[in-house]
């Protein structure tokens, strides 16, 4: 609540009096501050969550660390701002954060009406439902008449209405401001079903009093391309954020990993040479150093490593690569070449 008010106040103040803030380049601003300000999920296992010591981990968190590594050669130079779904875009619009990496769905209205730009898709997701096993429900189509808990200010809230409407089913919705409150209410029995992105369902299920009592229904009712967001109009900054993701994908495709990046610097493969900056001046073209990709891979890793560590086999979530596998392996993750 405090945060919401603060964000809105900052938003108003910024839009009223601080027209100049938008004119300055975000990259210069970040360099001057000495750290990157990154909008993060306040607590979604695998994507953005602080541990007991206050260290942030997650797929989106590592994405911000990769940007910091590219700029500062130091992945710790990030300040994470936890944001609820309903505050996140205002925080970015107002300049409170430099980049938003908070499992946000890329939609046309968000891209065109909010003064924001999505730079890519770092996780292909889709909306699903979770129910208690003892309800005996095996398909989302059987949820006619159910009460559903959802988080407000999300695409989820809208897809939910669409899904029930297009299937001619009735439902009751209870919307909460944060993911945590939403799941707690579901866990307390306020709702029959809990809905969010499929990745979120698996992450939230870990928080349940008894995770085995709940099942995730097989239907995926929407496309949820999740990606990082920047303010509209600063193309240089958008390029950096966009190409940090592509560099991590290209690194995985070329077999460059955290462990072998130093060896790969001696590689004769021209694609690897261009990625790691031993040939060409691609880094300088976007405003960072030519060894930017080396820094990212050394400190954070390639996309595959980040995925496995946070949400894949190396994490409690155990999510399959599926759509998030490289295009060469039947997935959708595809990066334009560096040349």
């Amino acid at each position, binding site marked *: 609540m405090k945060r919401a008010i603060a964000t*809105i106040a900052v*938003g108003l103040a910024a839009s009223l009096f601080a*027209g100049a803030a938008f004119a300055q380049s975000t990259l210069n601003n970040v360099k001057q501050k000495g750290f990157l300000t990154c909008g993060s999920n306040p607590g979604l296992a695998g994507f953005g969550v602080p541990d007991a010591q206050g260290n942030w981990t997650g797929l989106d968190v590592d994405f911000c660390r990769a940007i910091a590594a590219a700029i500062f050669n130091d992945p710790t130079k990030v300040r994470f701002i936890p944001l609820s779904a*309903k505050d996140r875009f205002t925080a970015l619009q107002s300049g409170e954060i430099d980049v938003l990496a908070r499992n946000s769905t890329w939609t046309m209205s968000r891209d065109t009406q909010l003064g924001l730009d999505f730079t890519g898709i770092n996780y292909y997701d889709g909306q699903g439902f979770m129910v208690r096993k003892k309800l005996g429900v095996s398909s989302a189509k059987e949820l006619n008449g159910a009460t559903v808990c959802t988080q407000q200010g999300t695409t989820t809230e809208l897809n939910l209405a669409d899904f029930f409407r297009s299937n001619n089913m009735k439902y009751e*919705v209870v919307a*909460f401001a944060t993911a945590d409150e939403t799941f707690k209410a579901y866990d*307390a029995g306020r709702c029959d079903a809990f809905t969010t992105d499929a990745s979120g369902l698996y992450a939230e299920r870990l928080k349940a009093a008894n995770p085995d009592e709940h099942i995730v229904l097989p239907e995926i009712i929407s496309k949820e391309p999740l990606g990082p967001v920047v303010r509209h109009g600063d193309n240089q900054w958008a390029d950096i954020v966009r190409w940090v993701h592509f560099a991590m994908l290209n690194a995985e495709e070329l077999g460059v990993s955290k462990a072998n990046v130093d060896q790969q610097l001696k590689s004769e493969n021209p694609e690897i040479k261009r990625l790691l900056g031993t040939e060409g001046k691609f880094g300088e073209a976007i405003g960072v150093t030519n060894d930017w990709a080396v820094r990212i891979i050394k400190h954070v890793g390639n996309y595959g490593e980040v995925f496995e560590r946070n949400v894949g086999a190396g994490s409690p979530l155990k999510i399959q690569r599926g759509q998030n596998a490289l295009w060469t392996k039947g997935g959708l993750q595809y990066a334009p070449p560096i040349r």
Partner: protein
Amino acid sequence: MPTEAGAQAPARGSLAYDPRVRAAVYQIVLVLLVTFLIYEAATNAIANLRAAKIASGFGFLEVTSGFDISQTLVPYSAAASTYGDAFLVGLLNTLLVAAIGIVLATVLGFIVGLARLSRNWVVAKLATVYVEVIRNLPLLLQLLFWYNAVLAPLPAPRESLRIYGVTLGAPGMFASLVVLVGLAAAYLLWRATERLARSPLERTLGKIAATIIGVLAGFVLLFRSGLLEATEGGIGFLNNRGLFLPKPLFGEGAWLVPAALAVGLVGAVAFRVWAKRRQEATGEQYPVGLVAFGLIAGLPALAWVATALVAGNPISFEIPQQQRFNLRGGLQVLPEFVALLVGLVTYTAGFIAEVVRAGILAVSRGQTEAAASLGLRPGQILRLVVVPQAMRVIIPPLTSQYLNLTKNSSLAVAIGYPDLVQVFMGTVLNQTGQAVEVVAITMAVYLTISLITSAFMNYYNSRMAIVER
């Protein structure tokens, strides 16, 4: 102030030293400055929003909303309603909880405030503890507590607690006999005790025994004789989805009932005014309360029965039905609403209690003593002498408590009650991204509600103020 000073000292010499001219100039300059600031801020905001490619304007209110809301007092659906409709739904939900909350908080606050001044030690201390605990805990914490306290012990929809209705039946022979004998015994024992008891102890014991016998007989009459029968299946249900009650459906001729209620209300007020005038003129007293009750409750009941006899039952009830997941139909009271209402009422009542206590203590002791010496009973002293004078002290701070309750209702956002802030500043703001417009509208709404409440309370205060003769 400056104009008054100017009136006393006639202006001489240069206009620049004329206090009246100075005051006017200063005020004009201030107004111009404020207008300029507002204009600058608005144009600057619009220019910056355009530059940042953020959509602006109020056109979004006409756009289809696409999301659903759990409690809607007016027809609303994701497919057919607009953001403007969502705004209305949120506003009505805020007004609903604020209006009910203000009434209940006033009642509870007065009770607790009077209890704090009670001569009964236990009652006074309990009221003190209530006030100190409630006032000193953050409201948000209390709301979360109530939400969990409301939600946690309630069963799932399939194991709903049932509320049974009753129908009249014919009492059985044997049970009727038991009831008659019991009631007669209770009556005789009561009368006998009054005449024959030799000490207060005997009198008390006798009366307690008579009461117990009477209550037992009454219990048998109501629940065991067959006079009242429980309906098959519940008519109401209570579970963790809320309280489900029968919903009245108004058929032909149903308008007569509310019309009769209106007539009853007007009649009751008129009778009260008439009775008061009579009493002032002749000293004669009338049972105002009884007559008012008869008019307000009796007339609509009469209208109902009359319509039912002539044209068939005008008001039927829709009973909630158990479905696979939930109950359908009927009137649903959401747990979020109950939690918010209970939280706001108990919290605000803590403050109102202190306002009431202060108001009553402000009435000088001499008033109470004078009233007592006139032969008024304690209840009458409170009602006729102390409270009317205390109201003058109570009303202004009471107004701020009403405003606080209304504004605090925006904490609904924490427990998922769809009030104005939750629906409009939450979902609508996020789906449209138009923060400046949405925040401006919301602020304007709260300001309007507060100003209307203040205006009404100021009017009431001027009515209650001492009339100088």
